[in-house]
């Protein structure tokens, strides 16, 4: 075949002229192009193509173009993208760098779905464009057709068909006759491109190499900084964030005689609202012994008990239970876990607690005892007293007889 081609070249063209690349036919309309394509297809040519300014409807069939493999490439990329997303999130958040966030598991499937999706699409999109370019052999800087001035119209309004001389069935006379039979507006020969340089200019190659090398320099610096040790402190980009105009605890202060920025309380002074003279109300004591009565400002009343119940429910019940039996949910849970370090909360219905002065109970609420923390910082003194009052009511509730119920309401008990 190669010989035959050479023969035809020699017979048809003068010595020294570029060899024949193919025959080019030009058409005015899509209809003419499609009709011509069908003829060329049926004649059994393989190395031929049509060139159009837009995708012509029906040309694929007329030329017998097979369905591209591109969808499979994209599918492969989609699977790769999905796998990457799964592995990346699993490795980074569930293995290498675990970090509890909003109560979600380390490897949380619902929370990683958005990124599964995004990376699947991202990889597929690159594959769609990249695959199209690769299958189409693009970019292609030069082509013999570029030498034909009229071929520039291919991106405007003209339609072309070219059969390559390299095709096994190509014979210049017969092929020309075949193309003439399709009534092209112009029929022309295309010669191989011998004028365009086959290599890039040396200057450009070196230029590109230098730019490529130079672009690695910042990365080299980053790599160096990643491993090298330095005596210098880090760069402070925003100084006024790192060195704020204020004094912090334990810093020196030039203004005060003792040189401290942190000021102590001034002797003989009390801050507003911090006097707390009343021993009974604030400390539960009367003449240095535990008070056995409630302070005068805490009147027993249904409201006070209601308030005490509410606060007891908030602060005490989680451990001591709502009835004070020492069976609050925290305790129950701790015993379920059976980890062995749990000191069970006290049952408030024990005798010694019934005998205990209210002042001492108040003090326990305030400062805590054994494992129990003090709640003085969290609960106002009045509310602490009301809790104690409610506690007394709870204790009393286990020691009552029917006589305690007013006569008029005894009927309701039946």
């Amino acid at each position, binding site marked *: 075949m190669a010989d035959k081609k050479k023969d035809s070249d020699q017979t048809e063209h003068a010595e020294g002229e570029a060899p024949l690349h193919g025959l080019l036919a030009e058409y005015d309309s899509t209809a003419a192009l499609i009709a011509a394509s069908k003829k060329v297809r049926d004649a059994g040519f393989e190395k031929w193509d049509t060139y159009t300014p837009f995708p012509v409807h029906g040309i694929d069939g007329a030329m017998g173009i097979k369905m591209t*493999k591109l969808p499979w490439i994209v599918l492969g990329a989609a699977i790769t993208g999905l796998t990457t997303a799964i592995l990346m999130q699993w490795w980074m958040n569930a293995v290498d760098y675990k970090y509890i966030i909003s109560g979600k598991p380390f490897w949380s499937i*619902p929370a990683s*779905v958005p990124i599964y999706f995004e990376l699947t699409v991202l990889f597929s999109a690159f594959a769609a464009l990249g695959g199209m370019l690769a299958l189409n052999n693009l970019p292609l800087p030069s082509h013999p057709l570029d030498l034909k001035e009229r071929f520039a119209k291919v991106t405007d309004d003209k339609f072309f068909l070219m059969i390559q001389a390299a095709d096994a069935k190509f014979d210049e006379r017969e092929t020309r006759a075949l193309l003439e039979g399709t009534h092209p507006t112009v029929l022309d020969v295309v010669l191989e491109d011998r004028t365009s340089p086959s290599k890039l200019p040396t200057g450009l190659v070196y230029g590109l190499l230098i730019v490529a090398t130079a672009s690695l320099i910042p990365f080299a610096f980053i790599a160096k900084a990643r491993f090298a040790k330095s005596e210098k402190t880090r760069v402070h980009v925003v100084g006024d964030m790192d060195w704020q105009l204020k004094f912090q605890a334990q810093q020196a202060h030039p203004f005060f005689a003792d040189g401290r920025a942190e000021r102590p309380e001034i002797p003989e002074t009390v801050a507003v609202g911090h006097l707390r003279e009343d021993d009974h109300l604030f400390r539960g004591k009367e003449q240095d012994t535990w008070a056995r009565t409630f302070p005068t400002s805490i009147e027993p009343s249904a409201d006070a008990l209601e308030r005490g119940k509410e606060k007891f429910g908030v602060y005490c019940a989680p451990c001591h239970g709502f009835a004070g039996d020492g069976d609050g949910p925290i305790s129950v849970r701790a015993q379920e876990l059976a980890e062995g370090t749990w000191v069970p909360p006290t049952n408030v219905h024990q005798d010694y607690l019934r005998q205990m002065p209210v002042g001492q109970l108040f003090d326990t609420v305030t400062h805590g005892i054994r494992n129990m923390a003090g709640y003085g910082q969290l609960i106002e003194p009045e509310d602490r007293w009301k809790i104690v009052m409610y506690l007394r009511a709870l204790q009393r509730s286990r020691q009552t007889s029917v006589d305690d119920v007013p006569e008029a309401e005894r009927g309701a008990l039946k």
Partner: protein
Amino acid sequence: MAEDKKPNKPVKKAAGPKQGEPPKKPPANVEAPKDDFDDNIRLGLDADRVMKVAGGVGAVSLVACLGLGFTGDAKRFMFAYLTAYIWILSIAIGALFWVTLQHLVNANWSIVLRRVAELMAQNMPLMALLALPILVPTAMGNDSLYIWVNHETVHADHLLHHKAPYLNVTFFLIRCAIYFGFWVLLSRYLFQTSVAQDQSKSPGDLAKRMQGLSAPSMILLALTLTFAAFDFLMSLEPAWFSTIYGVYFFAGCVLSFNSLFALTLMWLQKQGRLVKSVSVEHYHDIGKMMFGFTVFWAYIGFSQFMLIWYANIPEETFWYKMRFTGDWRTVSAILLVCHFVLPFLGLLSRHIKRNKKTLGFWAVWILVLHYVDIYWLVKPSLHEETLPTGDLLLDVTAIVGMLGLFLAGAAYQAKKVRLVAVGDPRLPKSLAFENF
């Protein structure tokens, strides 16, 4: 189906008639004749056959279901009935939506299919009738389905008390009257105008009139559909709420309608109807709708789940917790895999959408899974933790009954009219339609 072996469609055209597909469609530029249309487009005696068989089986089955309901546990019956009813109603709403949408966007490709969808949408009066076993007990104050019907429950529950201005029997019945009234009117109007178009001298004007009406109708359809979903389904769990619920229900409507639509067309073609008019291109488009709405359903379902799961507010999460405990956990997993993953992968390829057998398989699959979806929405309210497998007979008789009556209803309407909107000026485009 190896890709390289399969020549793409223009080759087929050049090579002659498509393999294993109906014979060639009439050429594009030939005006379709109005009265002697070149295809079999009358259901004729087959309509009677469908009415007898489907209608008979359906009626017997539904009576059996009602009988079981009267003799057995009322609550169980009500929940089984509601599940099947919502399933069939969603298909009817899907049909009505589809027809309205085609008018709204002035679609060309679907004209040849429109009449069949119109016939399916004609079942709206039947839907209103089938709703009676739900509406009548509710109207009579029976709270086996909706606990907000019971005054005492409402009184005791702060939240229900708050919602009482909306969730009360009178307003519920008024709303149902509005929904069904609107659906019946819209479906009748679009159907009758379309039939009138068959004989009309100015079919273009009628098409324009239908298009003009479809825009406001679409708004009302969106609202009625949403609130119907709230009323029939979301209020089963009256404490729970989700703004996206209507959209979720809508996704199921369109998905299930397109599946039944594809199956109906396949059956019609098997009976020798529409053989020349409906081509593989139309199936391809229906397949795309099925695929698209499979994804859309998953998108909406996932959005709802994700937001509730992530924010983790007890007043919302309990609804999912019910569905993630006990047997319902399995059902949830089945929905994820079989309602989304498998049909997504299965319908991805164009070859599957262009093959009647494979498309038919997925259509049946989706209809079944759509039922599972409704089942998952409805039944956990009554049956916590365990699947009510004992109610299988109730479920099956209810489904068969309603589907049978649905098909019979469509056939009854089909008897009187052509199966193709032959008068529509866009018909030639629809016949010549091709995918890219």
